């Protein structure tokens, strides 16, 4: 399989005040590298503030990266004009209540991208295309003249997906697309993402904090902590044979909807809170909450290396972890 998207040493720092001599930065994403193959789904999980959304947005250059490289289909797109690439790379946002313009009709929301990229030569063609998109996501033509407030959360997320699909993209960043939806609606939207992927050969970067869902939809999963990727592996490998202490505790903290399993499960409860990204710990960023932390962890940052084929981990103490 060929790589569709590749990021190398991606960094995204945000200014956070300070003085000219001592500027403060939030290191939202700090030296992250990974690739996504054509047609695959890469899941990205982590707690709030770990930089998963920033990674997704920087990848699309919705933020200009501080440093690092982004490659799309073999070409470096770190500095180029993005307009032609916007047709290929799209995003579905987290909050379907905030990401649709309340003063535009659904038809215009979906049609805006068609206009920008001049994908329709006349009004009828534009209309047909909009209807085709709405039908693809399980809505119908009469919805095109309505406004977002007339729809439920699940339907709005479908509109958001239709908007992303309007330009026939190859790659979609799905940024927490289901976390604002009711449980019984989540499965509908997850299934739709899978069906669209099969029909259209899409590639996804699926960002979410719910590891149950990410495991279900992804081929491989990356785990982020405080702006760093700490582990990346094939989904079953990650779910059943994780190596990093953070991944292990994250998995053990997830409530399993099965009384017997959850009674038997050994839980590793992490102490404390996530440190501030303004002033992250030296060395390994997880060391302040890690029970295996040693002197070395405070001094040297662990390298993100491949310990088994396709399984990457950044930890000094892999041999000590049971």
């Amino acid at each position, binding site marked *: 399989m060929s790589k569709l998207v590749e990021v190398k040493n991606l960094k995204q720092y945000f200014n956070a005040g300070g003085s000219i001599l001592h500027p403060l930065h939030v290191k939202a994403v700090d030296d992250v590298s990974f690739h996504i193959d054509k047609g695959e789904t890469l899941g990205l999980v982590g*707690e709030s503030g770990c930089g998963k959304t920033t990674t997704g947005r920087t990848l699309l250059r919705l933020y200009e990266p501080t440093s690092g490289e982004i490659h799309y289909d073999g070409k470096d797109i770190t500095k180029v004009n993005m307009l032609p690439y916007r047709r290929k790379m799209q995003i579905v946002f987290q909050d379907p209540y905030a990401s649709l313009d309340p003063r535009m009709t659904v038809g215009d929301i979906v049609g805006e991208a068609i206009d920008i990229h001049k994908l329709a030569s006349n009004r009828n063609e534009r209309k047909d295309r909009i209807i085709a998109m709405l039908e693809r996501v399980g809505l119908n033509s009469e919805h095109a003249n309505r406004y977002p407030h007339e729809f439920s959360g699940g339907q709005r997320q479908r509109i958001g997906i239709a908007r992303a699909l309007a330009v026939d993209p190859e790659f979609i960043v799905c940024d927490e697309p289901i976390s604002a939806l009711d449980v*019984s609606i989540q499965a509908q939207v997850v299934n739709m993402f899978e069906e669209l992927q099969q029909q259209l050969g899409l590639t996804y970067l699926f960002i979410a*904090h719910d590891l149950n869902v990410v495991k279900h939809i992804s081929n491989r999963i990356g785990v982020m902590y405080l702006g760093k990727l700490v582990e990346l592996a094939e989904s079953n490998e990650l779910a059943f044979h994780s190596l990093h202490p953070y991944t292990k505790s994250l998995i053990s903290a997830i409530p399993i*909807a*099965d*009384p017997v399993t959850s009674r038997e499960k050994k839980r590793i409860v992490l102490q404390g809170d*996530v440190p501030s990204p303004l002033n992250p710990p030296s060395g390994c960023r997880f060391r302040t909450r890690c029970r295996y932390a040693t002197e070395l962890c405070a001094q040297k940052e662990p390298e993100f290396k491949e310990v088994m084929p396709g399984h990457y981990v950044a930890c000094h103490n892999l041999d000590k972890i049971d």
Partner: protein
Amino acid sequence: MMSELLLDIKNLRLSFFTPAGEVKALNDVSIKLDEGDVLGIVGESGSGKSVTAYSVMGLTAYPGRIVDGTIDFNGHRINEMTEGDMRKIRGNEVSIIFQDPMTSLNPVYTIGNQITEVILLHTNKTKKEANDRAVELLRLVGINEPEKRLKQYPHELSGGMRQRVMIAIALACEPKLLIADEPTTALDVTIQAQILELMIELKNKIGMSIIMITHDLGIVANMCKKIAVMYAGKIVEYGSTDEIFYNPKHEYTKGLLRSIPKLTEKEHKKLVPIEGTPVDMLNPPAGCPFAPRCESCMKICMKAMPEYTALSEGHYSACWLLQKEAVMQGGGRS
């Protein structure tokens, strides 16, 4: 020791009288809770799970009104109490933790101020004693340097810490019943695990009962002894945790369990969603509210609401399919 009945909600009907019409938020809800038990209420947004719990606190704000039914809690008939009497037991015998710790603390008062407020209101303690008790409570919920924290304001604490403060306030008078309304929805999973662990630990220490309101089936599987599944203002199924998970009888419960992905599953199975959208509570369907989304919907389901069928001791469900089965087996109706 026989556990005693602490909370008994009988046939509660509660409506919101909005300009657009009457919204029947609770439609004949009955719940029994023993001392020391943990009851989970699950359901989607708008299913009435929070309204049920708030009614126990006497928090049925305008335009909501209890139309019918009774709420008995610890020797009080809540639905007949005056606001003044209610204030005496609120925070004292029953307390609540709200969903969002970011908005449920008062930003202009210190943490200490907000904890001691409850203590001073309900006990005869002096300010000094109340302060000592606040320190003790913060230590109990696992906050380090409690003396320093008392002087801080909510914005100086993280989400997990704020939720701990909320729990400390709720536990200040050692209530008989703690209502937790989605206490961890706004928190990250590792912090969620800390908070849930803390709640169970404190329950065992103080011996209180908990009503856990959540949409996360994982949380109830882990914490609760009994579960009430709500849909459109009605308890559609009620039973022990094992019965609900391993022997669900209502089509909605079954659908809910089928639709959630599990981390522990090795093979990729396609999810089976519940089709359709949640009920519009302004115009609910005539019969069973779940009928329009139900795969096994029959003619009668669209016309009339089914009675509860008792499936075993303490396990019952409202579904016409079960009524039909019961009739075919000859009797066994509730």
